[in-house]
């Protein structure tokens, strides 16, 4: 299968990120491309940590009554796994893609606030390191990534782990808010001539809308974190019931942030899918306006669904029914997206590069995760399944089935732009198939475990019928996941040196980032054409073909 026109090895070696610039250059950089790469690399490093924690848990749970980890350590590990994957892996991965690509897609050479951009990255990284430092400083946090009060209060969690947790999430939250501000301003002020907001690539649109979600949701979390810190360090009583505080207030504050956070991690994934699927189907995105509009609908609705995390708390039928209704409604704009992506593939000419394979797998896996989520909006079903392994299945089908899979699609799709070389497709396909089997094998059986009555966040479980065998099954497939990630990471390094040179536009894509060199020079664009449609590079190609321009066959390079 031919993915691109063959391009001879360059006479001049491609710019090498290590040799070219030196460490100091990276540390002091305010270039959005370098910062984007640093986000993506930190995300990868934290991913290795978070995944190792997951493996420790899978080994412990392989059989009932295993004692590899003490209860105390297991609780630290599952807390760190959740916190790492959400705040240190998925968030920076998506911000990394956005930081790298958003300016390129709108024809800008920089973000609106380059220094804020660097600040956002470094404060996030510092927060992440601080979180891991807690292991050395008297114990990692052990109260879950949701840190429910009053368990997270001083009288029940005496170790400093929760303080480290709150401070580092606060730092990362500030970084994320900074990045969101930057995306909003950049999108509003730095678009190239002719690129109205109705012509921006859907990636840009979704990151733009998503940034408002971040700007509204993270401050609530930050306020909550400051309150729990005041409780813990200055002996206040915001969340301690015994002294007149309210344990439920923490739940409200956390989920007012926490549920939008799910969409904060999902919308950029949708953004990636909205770029990859049309390019490899050779068709424009189907229903651009509906995908764009449904993004806004999701954003608005996501602020009215938080209490579906609290159906078992006992807040009354009317309250529960309201949040059941809103949580069901949010399925509609999400469904619209799925069907539009499917319609984009319909009657296309689909090229199954690894990026496209992942994007297509996303459609199926995310449909499973999304629908099991609608199941939780049916309050009585939630009363049976909440806080069971069914939720663990659901959350992984969303965060892996949507966010991580789309992240992989994005890596295969944009790696040529970032490094100048194409990731090995052969290794990519090994990665893909091992991943699909490993992922579904590991996580699908969790649905059954939840129905059988296995609560989540347990360091072991009684030897009830099927518990041992289903857990062992899951652990077995997680080994396949290790193999898949090893192939992926090997591919990243292997293709950096050995990959096929990419040229400017290896996938015949249509958005402006493919107009730059691969990798782009420090100043990405010297000249950008006036944008006349949603697919500027296609316009250039058409004008070439109709002979209006004197550009030759590869003449996009001139534009």
């Amino acid at each position, binding site marked *: 299968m031919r993915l691109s026109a063959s391009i001879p090895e360059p006479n001049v070696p491609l710019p090498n990120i290590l040799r070219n610039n030196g460490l100091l250059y990276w540390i002091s950089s305010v270039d959005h491309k370098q910062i984007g790469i640093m986000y993506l690399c930190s995300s990868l490093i934290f991913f290795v940590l978070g995944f190792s924690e997951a493996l420790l848990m899978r080994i412990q749970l392989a059989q009932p009554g295993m004692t590899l980890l003490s*209860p*105390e350590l297991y*609780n630290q590990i599952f807390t760190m796994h959740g916190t790492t994957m959400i705040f240190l892996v998925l968030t920076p991965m998506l911000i990394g893609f956005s930081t790298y690509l958003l300016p390129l897609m709108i024809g800008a050479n920089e973000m609106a606030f380059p220094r804020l951009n660097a600040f956002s990255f470094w404060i996030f990284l510092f927060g992440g390191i601080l979180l891991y430092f807690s292991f050395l400083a008297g114990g990692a946090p052990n109260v879950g990534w949701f840190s*429910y009060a*009053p*368990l997270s209060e001083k009288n*029940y969690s005496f170790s400093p782990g929760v303080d480290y947790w709150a401070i580092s999430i606060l730092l990362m939250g500030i970084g994320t808010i900074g990045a969101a501000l930057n995306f909003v301003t950049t999108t509003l002020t730095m678009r190239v001539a002719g690129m109205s907001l109705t012509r921006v690539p859907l990636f840009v649109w979704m990151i733009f809308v998503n940034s408002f979600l971040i700007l509204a949701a993270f401050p609530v979390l930050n306020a909550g974190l400051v309150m729990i810190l005041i409780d813990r360090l200055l002996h206040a009583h915001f969340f301690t*019931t*015994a002294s007149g505080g309210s*344990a*439920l207030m923490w739940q409200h504050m956390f989920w007012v942030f926490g549920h939008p956070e799910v969409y904060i991690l999902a919308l950029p994934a949708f953004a990636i899918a909205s770029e990859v699927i049309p390019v490899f189907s*050779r*068709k*424009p995105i*189907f*229903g*651009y306006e509906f995908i764009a509009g449904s993004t806004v609908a999701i954003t608005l609705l996501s602020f009215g669904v938080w209490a579906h995390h609290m159906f*078992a*708390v*006992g807040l009354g*039928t009317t309250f*529960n*029914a309201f949040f*059941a*209704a809103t949580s*069901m409604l949010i399925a*509609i704009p999400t469904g*619209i997206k*799925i*069907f*539009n992506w*499917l*319609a984009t*593939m*319909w*009657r*296309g*000419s*689909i090229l*199954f590069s690894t990026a496209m394979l992942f994007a*297509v797998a996303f459609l*199926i896996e995310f*449909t*499973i995760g999304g629908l099991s989520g*609608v199941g939780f909006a049916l*309050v*009585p079903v939630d*009363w*049976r399944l*909440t806080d*069971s392994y069914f939720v663990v299945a659901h959350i992984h089908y969303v965060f892996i089935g949507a966010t991580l899979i789309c992240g992989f699609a994005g890596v295969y799709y944009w790696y040529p732009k970032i490094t100048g070389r194409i990731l090995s497709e052969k290794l990519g396909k090994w990665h893909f198939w091992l991943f699909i089997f490993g992922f579904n094998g590991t996580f699908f059986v969790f649905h059954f475990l939840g*129905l*059988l*009555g296995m*609560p*989540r*966040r347990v*360091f072991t479980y*009684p030897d009830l019928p*099927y518990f041992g065998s289903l857990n062992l099954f899951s652990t077995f497939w997680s080994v396949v996941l290790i193999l898949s990630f090893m192939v992926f990471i090997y591919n990243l390094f292997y293709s950096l040196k050995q990959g096929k040179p990419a040229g400017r536009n290896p996938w015949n894509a249509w958005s402006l980032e493919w107009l730059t060199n691969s990798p782009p020079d420090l100043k990405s664009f010297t000249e950008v054409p006036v944008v006349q449609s949603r697919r500027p590079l296609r316009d250039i190609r058409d004008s070439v073909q109709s002979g209006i321009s004197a550009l030759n066959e590869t003449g996009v390079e001139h534009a």
Partner: protein
Amino acid sequence: MQYFWDKIERFFSALFQAASPQAEDINHLFYQFTIVATLIVLIVAGGVIYSAIRYRAKKNPEEPAQTHGNLKLEITWTVIPFLLLVFFFYLTVKAMKEINQPYAGKKPDIVIIAHQWWWDIRYPGKKIITANELHIPVNQKLLMEIESADVIHSWWVPELGRKTDAVPGRQNYSWIVADKAGVYKGKCSEYCGTQHAWMLIRVVAQTEEEFEKWAGQQQKAAVTPTDSVARAGARLFQHKACASCHAIRGTAAISHMAPDLTHLASRKTILSGMLPLTDANLRHWLQKPQKIKPDANMPDFMLSPQEMNALTKYLEELQ
């Protein structure tokens, strides 16, 4: 072949075991939703796989028609899901009302106070206090009041219906009924600290007569030991710090910071369902509590062998 079908059937019936109308309502709603959800997954997956094969570039090398959208289709896949959701919203509210029947003005039959990491179970009308093992008469709808003494916990017995959070500072109410006699296993389902995994529940549903017999026994004060070893154990219980947390009715021990031991020997398990109640397990626990259940509030009393014999003898006689 038949063998595998039987296995699969057994597996699926294990997934959806129900022993109460509540649990059946929930299962019913779950089946209906799963059927629709599976259909949707099949439509999406079918569409994806069909286009992946039918429209692959190898067979369709030409640039396809550049369609940008279709309003009718958009309306279709907005309206159909909407109608489906309206239908499920109706079913949801109906099931909610069915499960949460009004309880206003009614006194709870059972009060459950969740602790780190055990359940204090009381029958206010019957003046019974026990722990971790709830006895109920079959086919009687009882009202439970669920609260917490420390952090948030959640009462969950899948076969008997909904889970209910135990939130400090709140009283939650929930109905419990079992329509078959039997033992139903549940667990705490909200993460509540180190030993969350070993905060299990045993519900024993029994016939009216058996339940009354059990209740009558539980209402009595603890037996006074007759044999000299057990009497020494009773003295130890008061003199060592046991009595400052555990209550034994009929003695000076009245604290309810830890499980009531008045009829300990009538229970099947210790440590909130972690271990079966046997002489060996009891000794093991008294000897090395922090090794068996780290972080539990039980201290190690460094009992001598004689003390151990006396104390276990006493506790095992508390029928």
